């Protein structure tokens, strides 16, 4: 068995209003940055999976991402494999 490290990125779907992103965006000009737009706030989840091989680990994380880590009604999810841990 090998431990594989993953990062899972969850973001609100494009069509949906993102009040948190909007609030951050409207705070930036107060600090002098007036050229920023399209701010979206999402989630970054790190996790390690102990699996027989990489394919099994990726399949498992993709299922976890779909069933628990994100809600497909409102969110997009992206799974990034970081590395196999020694």
């Amino acid at each position, binding site marked *: 068995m090998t431990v594989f490290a993953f990062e899972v990125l969850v973001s*609100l779907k494009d*069509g*949906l*209003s993102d009040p*948190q992103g909007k609030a951050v965006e409207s705070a930036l000009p107060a600090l002098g940055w007036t050229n920023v737009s399209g701010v979206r706030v999402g989630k970054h989840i790190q996790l390690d999976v102990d699996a027989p091989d990489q394919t099994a680990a990726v399949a498992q994380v993709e299922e976890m991402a779909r069933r*628990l880590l994100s*809600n497909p*009604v*409102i969110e997009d999810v992206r799974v990034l494999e970081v590395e196999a841990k020694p």
Partner: protein
Amino acid sequence: MTVRTPRIGVVTFPGSLDDRDALRAIATMGGEAVPLWHADADLRGVDAVVLPGGFSYGDYLRCGAIARFAPVMEEVVRFADRGSPVLGICNGFQILCESGLLPGALIRNRSLRFVCRNVWLRVETSLTVVTNELTPGETVQIPIKHGEGQWVATPEQLDRVEDGNLVVFRYASREGIVDAAHNPNGATDNIAGVRNEAGNVVGLMPHPEHAVDPDIGPVGGQPLFASLLRSALVGIAT
């Protein structure tokens, strides 16, 4: 025909806040209130189930996302699939959406503010377990208190909800006017509550359990609980 007192269960999750008020409201309205526990896969033979408001499991990840996997929820899903009455209030509504029993999802209020006040709701259908004592077009006053109550859905879900008459309540004026001025959280089409196709599962953000006692505020929650008790009895009869 002898009329039995309907037994209504209220599930307590870690972080539930309104379970006691829900139990109290059921008893006030003449039902037998039955406490249920999230970790028990057992509904104790109740005739209807209420998922109360609060912050189950700290609302970590997403509101209701972790509660939907609680042992009791498998039983609730089975119970709902059999056509028995299930009502989700606030966090309970979020749990029902996360479970896939109801369409849509609830995200942060558009204002980013927690809102806590009485609102008016326009009843959109009487074909549910909580509105069978109400008439479409009628309004009821019930409090809301939430930070993540903006109901949204995919375009396909929204079509299904609007075309299929699945909206149960909309935020409105006292006179029943539905507009942006009476939308407290930015919810799509002012939607405050929805039902499943069969009408036995209903979720809403407002809190009917806080609106049954005339000594402490509006009583718009009374007809919802009266409907639920009636539905529970019908369930017994069939």
